[in-house]
């Protein structure tokens, strides 16, 4: 008897927080620190998650459209959910076995709370 492999990422708490942040405004492009601030996670945590989601095709990213020499700073990398990714993320969050409010004791910001949640 073989167990079916899940097609999405492991829905850890940080992954759920990142997805909820991105889903709060699915059409908005966000850069790493913005996502960190939105999800309330430290910066080292989100890049592996973003890499995994991007690898799965849930996210797409692009460089900021500036000339670093003119601006005197490096370009930011902007992330956005793909249409399919947003759909998959919603489904995955709804099916996630680890529910955020139960673990975080209802301390989530309203934008990150699941729809119909009790937090």
């Amino acid at each position, binding site marked *: 008897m073989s167990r079916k492999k899940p097609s999405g990422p492991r829905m850890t708490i940080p992954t759920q927080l990142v997805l909820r942040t991105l889903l709060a405004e699915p059409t908005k492009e966000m*850069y*790493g620190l913005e996502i960190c601030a939105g999800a309330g996670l*430290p910066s080292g*945590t989100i890049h592996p998650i973003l*890499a995994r989601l991007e690898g799965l095709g849930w996210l797409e990213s692009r460089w900021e459209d500036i000339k670093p020499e003119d601006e005197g700073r*490096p370009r*930011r*990398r902007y992330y956005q959910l793909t249409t399919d990714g947003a759909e998959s993320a919603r489904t995955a969050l709804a099916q996630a076995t680890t529910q955020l409010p139960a673990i975080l004791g209802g301390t989530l910001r309203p934008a990150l709370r699941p729809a119909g949640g009790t937090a």
Partner: protein
Amino acid sequence: MATTVISAVFAVMTVALAAVGYRQAERARRSAREELSRRRIEQELRLSEFSRPLKPGESIPPSELAAAHNIRVHMQVEVKVTRPARSRSAIGLAEFAASVLPASDRDRYAEEFRAELQDLAQSGAGHPRQLLYGLRQIRGILQMRYALRSPRRKSATP
């Protein structure tokens, strides 16, 4: 047992020293910001002296033009001086973290980390917070390397 106690004491002392250093740096930054905003207001008031409307055919007297130019240059220099610098050690840590990644992704993430350090510096984050950023990248880098090398990975653009 003794080693554990010594290590614990050492760790507590390190944290306490770091906290004291951070508070002092934060206080210095705050007073520098206040001083800068006070000077900016003064300079803007002085600049406004030059903003009288010109009569038709009248040119700005060279002395006034030179004075306005000096004030502008002075302001730019001050802004540059008081803007928190990017921590070189933090950049080194972030670049080290990026070097652990697969070759195809190295440059992309090195630039991304540098951009985030720049954003941190511009938002007023001092040396300790930038160092913390670099250390956190190192902490999560093996996980990221694994994610980037995963066979399930489709088409992330480098």
